[in-house]
């Protein structure tokens, strides 16, 4: 039973099917949501050992030119001009209204070259926007189809790279990247990730996908993990997912990122004016629910009997053994931690409390 619906497939598609993956559409791609052991086992394995994720679907752009730093500095919500080569910086591409076109990570390659990693579903819109905004003397290339990405995440992820011949001391520090080779395959290796565990993201030529995947899976304790566990892992960390916590109706301030934007500084960038002069219309907060039952996206949230917000993402948390959610609360003020809430649909009423994120507090990402 093949439902292609014009879904794109990654170079590892056959391997996923052979591994017994349950494949689902995601952002126009046919992706593994889980393998044979299931989401909860995959989630726990990542927190305890090490997992590999096929992330081919995300987009990668290259921006080059003498004026690329200045140009990007005006386009992106976080400064680029002062970003050092060899580092990664998480930030946003905004509309003139300060709302989020995408969240992304900028890798500074050198003074005049940047590698920007964007979400799968927004890749084409992002490319169009960069092309429209960048001056003619700055080159832009969408390298997504030629670039494979595999995430290697878990407390044992550094051990895997060492067993493949990389020197432990040469591995990049948190939010830094290096150019290296894994079993002869040239790659960019960054110490970044979406799980909250020690981990790396590996970017390399697409035609080496099978080889890289097989090499990593052949290492001790490495298991394949799908998008289902990727979502429970990121949600336990309180990380936003574009399309849920971030979208064209939401500013990064509302999503809780005011601090990294440094709006007090003089820098002018697209969306800055509105972010500096207007109040947020809503605020993101974490909720720990009483019990195992999850409240999904869109569930109304009540405080003292009044509808006060909506869930943007919700799931059962394998690490906590209870349900968790991120929700937007109406109004400009932040909700105090420990506020009692009720999540109500016509099927259920669940109580909970707002809480600080991350929900899971033992992540090894910064070790």
């Amino acid at each position, binding site marked *: 039973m093949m439902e292609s619906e014009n879904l794109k497939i990654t170079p590892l598609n056959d391997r996923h099917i052979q591994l017994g993956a349950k494949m689902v559409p995601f952002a126009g791609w046919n992706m593994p949501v889980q393998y044979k052991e299931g989401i*909860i086992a995959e989630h726990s394995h990542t927190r305890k050992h090490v997992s590999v994720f096929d992330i081919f679907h995300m987009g990668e752009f290259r921006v080059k030119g003498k004026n690329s730093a200045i140009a990007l500095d005006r386009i992106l919500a976080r400064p680029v001009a002062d970003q050092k080569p060899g580092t990664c910086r998480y930030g946003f591409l905004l509309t003139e209204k300060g709302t989020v076109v995408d969240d992304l990570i900028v890798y500074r390659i050198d003074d005049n070259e940047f590698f920007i990693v964007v979400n799968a579903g927004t890749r084409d819109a992002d490319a169009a926007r960069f092309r429209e905004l960048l001056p003619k003397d700055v080159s832009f290339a969408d390298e997504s189809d030629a670039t494979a990405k595999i995430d290697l995440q878990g407390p044992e992820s550094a051990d895997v790279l060492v067993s493949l011949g990389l020197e432990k001391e040469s591995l990049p520090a948190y939010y830094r990247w290096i150019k290296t080779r894994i079993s002869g395959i040239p790659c960019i290796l960054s110490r970044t990730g979406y799980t909250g565990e020690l981990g790396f993201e590996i970017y390399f030529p697409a035609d080496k996908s099978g080889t890289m995947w097989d090499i990593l899976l052949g290492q001790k304790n490495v298991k394949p993990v799908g998008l289902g566990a990727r979502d429970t892992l990121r949600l336990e960390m309180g990380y936003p997912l574009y399309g849920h916590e971030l979208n064209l109706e939401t500013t990064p301030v509302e999503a809780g990122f005011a601090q990294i934007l440094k709006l007090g500084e003089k820098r002018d960038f697209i969306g800055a004016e509105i972010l500096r002069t207007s109040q947020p219309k809503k605020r993101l907060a974490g909720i720990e629910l009483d019990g195992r039952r999850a409240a999904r996206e869109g569930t109304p949230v009540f405080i003292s009997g009044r509808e006060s917000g909506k869930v943007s993402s919700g799931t059962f948390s394998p690490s906590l053994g209870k349900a968790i959610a991120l929700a937007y609360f109406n109004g400009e003020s932040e909700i105090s931690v420990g506020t009692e809430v009720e999540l109500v649909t016509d099927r259920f009423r669940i109580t909970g409390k707002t809480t600080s994120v991350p929900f899971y507090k033992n992540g090894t990402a910064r070790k």
Partner: protein
Amino acid sequence: MKKYTKEHEWVEIKGTEAVVGITAHAAKELGDITFVEMPPEGTDLIVGDVLGTIESVKAASDIYAPISGTVSGINKELEEEPAIVNISPEGKGWVCKLDNIDLVELEDLMSQEQYEKYLKESSRK
């Protein structure tokens, strides 16, 4: 002997009671089950009524009464360990028991053989 519904429930008569659960196929489709909502004891059900819900990490599915009856017991172990449904969906993972049943209603349901045929046919899209 179990009988099966098109909505992937099974029912088995034990004495004067009917034991109800979801099929192995349904459990596999759902994935790791994280929560089971069971009906209060004493609830009167007509065949086809929603008697509860099963949630997995990625999905939620209603459980429909395969026959009419009154809820005479629920599987309390599922409150702490819903994963039992994944491990043994047609055994230890039973959801509830019904009494005040009419055996005639079983005739509308499928045998195991008929259910397996039904699954094969449904997957040929």
